[in-house]
């Protein structure tokens, strides 16, 4: 198989990349860590479902229901395959990473976290992987503690070791890739340490699955979460994977249709996995749209995705480093960072910077990136962040750079 895809070709599949914004400038979309754009294949899959097959699923016998149910359940198989999971019953569809983590906090956490226990996370987590555990810790009288990081954004695993020695840690929950620094977490080592200590591990894969090959079975963690909308898929779909024995032992989360076996007035039994955790009408059309996103990524290949992003990141780091007064966060080691670059530019506040370069059609994110704990650690109020995906080009990075230079003039740097 020919594995070189041209970005020119890929761009043709993304109609929004033809958009002109503000002063009729071509859109330069560099906020892919927040959400990615969608190829026409995904958009069409959703339209096609509503145009030709729309029906509720699982419970009806008529033709449309059969087609919709089959299409929906096939996505479960596809997702399992895509992340290297053998048992489709372990794939639970949710709204996104945030819901997946909350599901674990409620359904597993409330059963397994007791007073005095410790939950560990890291200083560079997204709020989605901090706040649910703060809520749980408060409810159960447990503590949430942090694995610190060094100034290059690499975790200091000694902190983990020290806490593990207390024997009180019940869960370690870390992101596979930081959405601010791009740091690729050394999850292999963390999982090994935790396994030895008999501690459960949740991996937040919101930033890893879209950007590199991930085999969850090989990782050996206990829970894994990610979002479709960050990997070409629609909004409103995410995946929670968990080991079957854990899902089986867990109490249900939401109660309602589809998750039950038999409902009586005063007692109820639960459906098989994964349905026990999928109460109510799911986001059927978008799960089917997600399928087209996975097809797209499989077609171009996750190795290509990663390679392309390394190339762009290398180029961008070089260009950005040459701008006077621009401070870049995170490691320079390209093998240990994804296509995410956070920076601050002299004394220009990131919001002002984003507004100025938006005039040139450049879309970057500014702010705390839902990582205020990290902002405190970096001792900044905010950063600017450019993040790349399969359709971005070096030319676009050049536009970013020249726009930054214009900002410097505006702010008389």
């Amino acid at each position, binding site marked *: 198989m020919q594995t070189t895809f041209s970005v020119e070709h890929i761009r043709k599949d993304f109609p929004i990349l033809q958009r002109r914004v503000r002063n009729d400038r071509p859109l330069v979309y560099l906020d892919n860590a927040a959400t990615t754009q969608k190829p026409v294949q995904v958009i069409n899959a959703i339209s096609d479902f509503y145009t030709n097959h729309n029906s509720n699923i699982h*419970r*009806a016998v008529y033709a449309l229901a*059969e087609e919709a149910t*089959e299409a929906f359940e096939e996505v479960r198989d596809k997702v399992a395959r895509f992340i290297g999971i053998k048992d489709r019953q372990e794939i639970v569809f949710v709204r996104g990473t945030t819901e997946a983590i909350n599901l674990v906090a409620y359904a597993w956490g409330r059963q397994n976290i007791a007073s005095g226990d410790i939950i560990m996370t890291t200083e560079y987590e997204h709020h989605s992987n901090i706040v649910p555990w703060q809520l749980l810790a408060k409810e159960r009288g447990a503590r949430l503690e942090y694995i610190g990081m060094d100034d290059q954004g690499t975790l200091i695993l000694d902190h983990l070791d020290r806490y593990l020695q207390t024997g009180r840690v019940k869960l370690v929950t870390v992101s596979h890739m930081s959405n601010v620094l791009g740091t690729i977490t050394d999850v292999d080592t963390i999982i090994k340490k935790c396994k030895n200590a008999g501690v459960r591990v949740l991996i937040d894969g919101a930033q890893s699955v879209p950007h590199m090959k991930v085999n969850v079975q090989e990782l050996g963690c206990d829970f894994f979460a990610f979002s479709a909308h960050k990997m070409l898929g629609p909004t409103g779909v995410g995946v929670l994977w968990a080991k079957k024995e854990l899902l089986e032992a867990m109490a249900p989360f939401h109660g309602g249709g589809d998750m*039950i*076996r*038999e409902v009586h007035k005063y007692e109820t039994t639960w459906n098989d996995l994964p*349905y026990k955790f999928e109460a109510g009408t799911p986001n059927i059309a978008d799960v089917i749209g997600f399928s087209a996103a996975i097809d797209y990524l499989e077609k171009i290949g996750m190795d290509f995705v990663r390679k392309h992003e390394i190339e762009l990141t290398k180029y961008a780091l070089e260009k950005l480093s040459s701008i006077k007064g621009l401070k870049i966060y995170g490691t320079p080691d390209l093998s240990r960072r994804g296509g995410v670059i956070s920076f601050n530019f002299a004394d220009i506040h990131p919001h002002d910077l984003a507004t100025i370069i938006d005039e040139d059609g450049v879309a970057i994110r500014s702010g705390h990136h839902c990582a205020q704990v990290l902002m405190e650690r970096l001792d900044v109020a905010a950063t600017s962040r450019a993040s790349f995906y399969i359709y971005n080009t070096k030319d676009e990075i050049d536009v970013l750079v020249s726009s930054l230079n214009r900002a410097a003039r505006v702010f008389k740097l």
Partner: protein
Amino acid sequence: MSGNADIYHEMIVEYSRHPSNYGKIENPDISYHDSNPLCGDSIDIFMKVQDNKVTDIKFQGRGCAICMSCTSVLTELVKGKAIDDVKKIQKDEILGELGLQNLQAVRIKCALLSLKVLKYGLYTYLAGKLKDANADALKAEASALY
């Protein structure tokens, strides 16, 4: 996605009104219950075992014609058979008997609910009463049915 036009032939309609081996056995050696969470069909199977043979089998429950006829055929197949042979019963035997090989996916659960109940029941009996270490295979088979 095959059609279902030919499903409701005489035999199935007949079984749905007059199922075989319908009823309850007092003090059964094996009894097991399950239901289909999607449609609410629910089946109880009862068996008497003597000398490693299923000497009697009956079932109770509510279900559609497909479910009732498949359960009827299953109980007919099981009655009098050695447990080792009962263990070997496969879904195709039942579906074949009734001409249901091409049943649509969503109805296949109706057809196989009783086989699932049978296999779980046997598993419980063998693993529980007889401490049969090989019983786990039955459980896996049952859970793989649909």
